[in-house]
């Protein structure tokens, strides 16, 4: 269930991000903990009215929740992924990002030095 599967993932990520038990999330949405479990295990998918409740309570857009669409701003996607990682993986990702930035900074420096040289020769 490709898209349903992704819908499940997004519901799970919302619960994880907000550190909620199935019971607490159910209480916020006015459904039982069993219903939340059924959504998260793909036994049923939320009724349309419950989708709107999730969006309202957890401040997300229905297009994102249901279809995984974004407005082209990937920052929120990265935040969602980040929140799903454990602290070890977060540290690993941070060092990877730092290395990439360092590598790119070096590249920019070299390029600007070359440009400068061209300017002098001109």
């Amino acid at each position, binding site marked *: 269930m*490709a898209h349903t599967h992704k819908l499940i993932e997004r519901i799970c990520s919302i619960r994880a991000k907000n550190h909620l038990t199935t019971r607490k999330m159910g209480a916020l949405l006015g459904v039982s903990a069993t219903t939340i479990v059924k959504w998260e295990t793909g036994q049923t998918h939320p009724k349309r009215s419950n989708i709107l409740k999730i969006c309202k309570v957890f401040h997300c857009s229905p297009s994102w929740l249901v279809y*995984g669409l974004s407005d082209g*701003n990937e920052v929120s996607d990265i935040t969602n992924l980040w929140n799903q990682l454990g602290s070890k993986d977060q540290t690993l990702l941070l060092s990877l990002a730092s290395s990439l930035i360092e590598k790119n900074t070096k590249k920019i420096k070299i390029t600007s030095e070359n440009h400068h040289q061209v300017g002098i020769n001109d």
Partner: protein
Amino acid sequence: MTDNVISFIQNDPDDCMHQMAFNYIDEIMFEFFSIPDDEKCQKDHKRRRVFYHQSVYDHLNRTNQSLANFHENLYREDLGEVIQFWLKTRKCYDKEKRFPAGNIINWFVFAEPNAMMLYLIYGEFAYLSIAPPKIISALQQYAKACQRFIDCRNNKIIVHFNYSEDGEKPKYKIEKRRIELLGLLNPQSNSSLCDVDSSIDKDISLKNVIKK
């Protein structure tokens, strides 16, 4: 220099277009998801209850078209085949079921000569709306980028769809006459705008294939 670059990025016309299209889809989704389950639907199509947005009725009035004509065009065989073919490649398509596409949660946009339509599917419910003129080009661009666009504006159907999930080949075995089409399928890069895992960025003209 850096400020100029940032300013350019913030004013990227593609971002503005995507934002417009996204907002439109979101607005239509809010309406779709607010319709009570037991409300009378406009069309019962293969056990899917299809609701229409007000824009559809406005379009019928504007074009002096009857609902029967509109349905005949909307549920015509060639377009139906194209959509069915795509649905059959979705993981949640269960061919063992009496209504195999009953669990599908998906969306697409299709363009007719005088209307750009957004079709939202949520399990046994669907919602059809016709985009206002100001949103047409943004919606087209966004749907193309998301691999969810069918162009029926000319004498052929051009499909911008991704035909596989998770980089796998479509699980549905297509019949002989579609072999030529399968040859065109090319799962490849990721789309950054939606959670399709693989995509195809080619215009596939299905007319010749289907008519064989």
